[in-house]
């Protein structure tokens, strides 16, 4: 049985994380995190793209086409990581009944869906020159596609309820069901058809030159920063939408303007 926020508050009142688990307390830190992450994303992306296009050499086998890797792999990773984060916040929300957890999952979903689309799109454009086809029904591609469907289902379900509290918890449940299913789907699709190469990232092994790897990892951090910043921005918007009646919010958002 899910608890109400107040009950959880009484029970976990002394814990450190509780201080930031309410929208009012997290609104300002979220803004600071957002600004920091926008800056980080821009700087890291600039460094990563410079390394990727001007320092990293041409690949021996693939020529220049491999340069898609600097956005393809980070996007694919983020699509998965964001889904996991969404499922984590959903679980926390269902378990503790905190409003902020649900808002966090809602804030993550659109960016996650975008990452899934991006990794599919770049994958298709990379696959054409290297594998000889835009699309294969391979385990990784297919499960990314399904991940995209799950994101869409989550967002559609959250939007289908007029009662926001219901929508929050219903969407959280579907996120968890999806999280249990993703590995099952992945392995069954893998069984069904295996074509994607093994993962090439093993530092120290010869499968990727150091400079290429460095560019890719820096781009990955840029994607992380971007995702966090976007999620924090969306989180603050959701807090404004939902907590519109609260005095502290009016004071901090409208206070300066009037």
């Amino acid at each position, binding site marked *: 049985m899910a608890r109400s926020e107040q*009950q959880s508050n009484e029970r976990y009142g002394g814990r450190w994380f509780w201080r930031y688990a309410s929208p009012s307390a997290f609104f300002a830190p979220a803004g600071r995190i957002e600004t920091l992450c926008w800056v980080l994303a821009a700087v890291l992306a600039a460094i990563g793209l410079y390394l990727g296009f001007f320092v990293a050499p041409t690949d021996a086998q693939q020529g220049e086409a491999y340069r898609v890797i600097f956005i393809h792999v980070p996007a694919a990773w983020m699509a998965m990581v964001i889904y996991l984060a969404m499922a984590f916040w959903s679980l926390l929300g269902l378990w503790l009944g905190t409003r902020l957890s649900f808002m966090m999952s809602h804030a993550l979903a659109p960016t996650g869906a975008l990452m899934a689309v991006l990794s599919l799109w770049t994958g298709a454009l990379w696959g054409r020159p290297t594998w000889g086809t835009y699309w294969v029904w391979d385990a990784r591609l297919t499960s990314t596609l399904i991940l995209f469907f799950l994101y869409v289902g989550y967002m559609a379900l959250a939007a289908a309820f007029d*009662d926001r*509290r219901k929508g929050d918890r219903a969407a959280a449940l579907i996120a968890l069901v999806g999280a249990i299913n993703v590995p099952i789907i992945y392995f069954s699709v893998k069984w069904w058809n295996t074509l994607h190469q093994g993962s090439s990232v093993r530092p120290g092994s010869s499968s990727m030159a150091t400079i290429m790897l460095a560019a890719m990892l820096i781009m990955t951090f840029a994607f992380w920063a971007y995702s966090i910043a976007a999620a924090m921005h969306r989180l603050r918007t959701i807090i404004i939408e939902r907590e519109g009646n609260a005095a502290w919010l009016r004071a901090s958002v409208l206070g300066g303007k009037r």
Partner: protein
Amino acid sequence: MSVRLTVDALAAERGMRAVFSDVSFAAVGGTLMRVTGANGAGKTTLLRILAGLGAAAAGCVEWSLDGSPLPSTSASIFVGHSNACHEALTVSENLAYAAALGGADATPGRIEHALAAFGVRPLARRRFGTLSQGQRKRASLARLLVAGPEDARAWLLDEPFVALDIDTQSQLAALIEARLGAGGLVVYTSHQTVPIRCAHAVEVAL
């Protein structure tokens, strides 16, 4: 059997809007409790929370039987606006289903007895969908009696007198009185004032 209901600082919300807050009361078996309030004050919401069908925004509801705590779902029978009967099934099938879900074994004799108390015994083998509105209401109220007199659950009745003719209203009132006399707890909401004699009447205003 002695049912006890304790409600402490209860609050409810619907679609993020507060419906009521800080409602506290306690009641024991033999008490008739009437919940009053304007439209939209949250009478139905309160009853659904007591029944365990809805979640409270804050506060708690505790049921106990002879001192040992009970989960909400085993503590009460809820009769709401809908009849809780499927139109394609007969009256007795519907009642047997409700009884089995409630944890009781409904023998045909019990069902007939319960229907007789509302004067609709001949309808037992009719499809629910073929009944008139008044007949439907009576047949569905018979659900309260199917489990038998040893059933300790409290009755939660949401507007039970609506759509009942005068005869049935007094039948139901008599049954409620009998129930209270046997030590049962009855909580109801009503716009009509139907006289119910009882030793212990409490009113909760929302």
